[in-house]
């Protein structure tokens, strides 16, 4: 065990800082997702929204019930919208990859399916954008900041984070 024990914090303070970190990471992908051209941004934003929800829901009792319910609903709507978009991205990517190994004449049914999925994805992007714009309009980030402020936690976003080859911040692990 470590002899240099840091000053212990209570679980709520720890949770508030962990939540702020996760929300910051989630919001770092906001613009990329809004632009609708970066499947990796969709994936990452969804992963970090899910991670944020795990902390928020686990430590719900650290916050006022009304605030928790309202903000949890906002986080859920982001996770849900991104999940459907991500599912379509994954399916499209796979179909496009798999069809290449088939003789051209056998690809028509899959190509038609891809066209339908692309159309569906375009519609889904409108829903995703609407969800993100609502997040902004309702000042959800500011509401979270207000909620976390008593614990000394702040949400820091790096919207123009440098991307490495795999689409993540440099030297950051690849979450899933």
């Amino acid at each position, binding site marked *: 065990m470590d002899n240099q024990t840091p000053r212990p914090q*209570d679980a709520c303070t*720890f949770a508030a800082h962990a939540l702020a970190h996760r929300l910051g990471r989630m919001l770092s992908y906001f613009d990329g997702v809004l632009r609708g051209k970066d499947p990796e941004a969709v994936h990452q934003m969804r992963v970090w929204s899910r991670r944020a929800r*795990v902390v928020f829901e686990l430590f719900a009792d650290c916050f006022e019930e009304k605030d928790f319910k309202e903000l949890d609903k906002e986080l859920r709507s982001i996770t849900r919208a991104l999940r459907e978009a991500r599912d379509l991205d994954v399916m499209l990517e796979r179909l496009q990859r798999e069809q290449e190994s*088939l003789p051209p004449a056998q690809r028509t*049914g*899959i190509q*038609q399916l891809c066209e*339908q999925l692309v159309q569906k994805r375009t519609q889904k992007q409108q829903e995703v954008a609407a969800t993100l714009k609502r997040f902004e309009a309702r000042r959800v980030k500011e509401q979270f900041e207000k909620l976390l402020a008593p614990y000394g936690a702040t949400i820091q976003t790096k919207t123009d984070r440098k991307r490495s080859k795999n689409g993540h911040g440099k030297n950051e692990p690849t979450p*899933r």
Partner: protein
Amino acid sequence: MAKTSQPLAKQRPLSVPQAAVAAIRRHLAEVTQHASAIHRPEAVHELHDLRIAIKHLRYTLELFLEAPEMESALYSAEKTGLEALLTDLRHLQELLGNIHDADVLMPTLLKQLGRLVRKGYGKDADGASIIGVHHVDLEGCEGLVALCRRIKEQRAQHYAELCQFWERPERQKLFSELAALLARLEADLAHVPER
């Protein structure tokens, strides 16, 4: 479906290790509850629930390993064990994710196959019976069937790998060690005076 995390009991001020024990214990129980699905390849919903439970356990372990309080509460061998467990959880999640992707893709492909086949029988827009051999793109159907078959084979491979990985003694040991660690932490915490 696997439930999302329920809030921890209202015991304030709860220390970080106390919260960790309660949360990890709960998520470990969820994994154990859904683990029987591993021996049923056709249990698509239950396997998906297991994947969610594993993801919750993983995120929760990662969360608490960030806390400086856990650094001082854990022996280095325990920390190493938890890191190895996280690697295993990531792999399990990936295998279950591949299985789920196949389970979701298959009906989408079959629906498309149905659309193509549907052009070859029944009534046309004017209510006349559809007859003839030229209405269905049989090669397009063949492509879809070939892909369905491939997806099924890949799913079977991922499932076999999952079973093999799950049965590994090393994997089982890491889960047992986590349960023992939780018991050890709980016992230690019971002797710590309230702050």
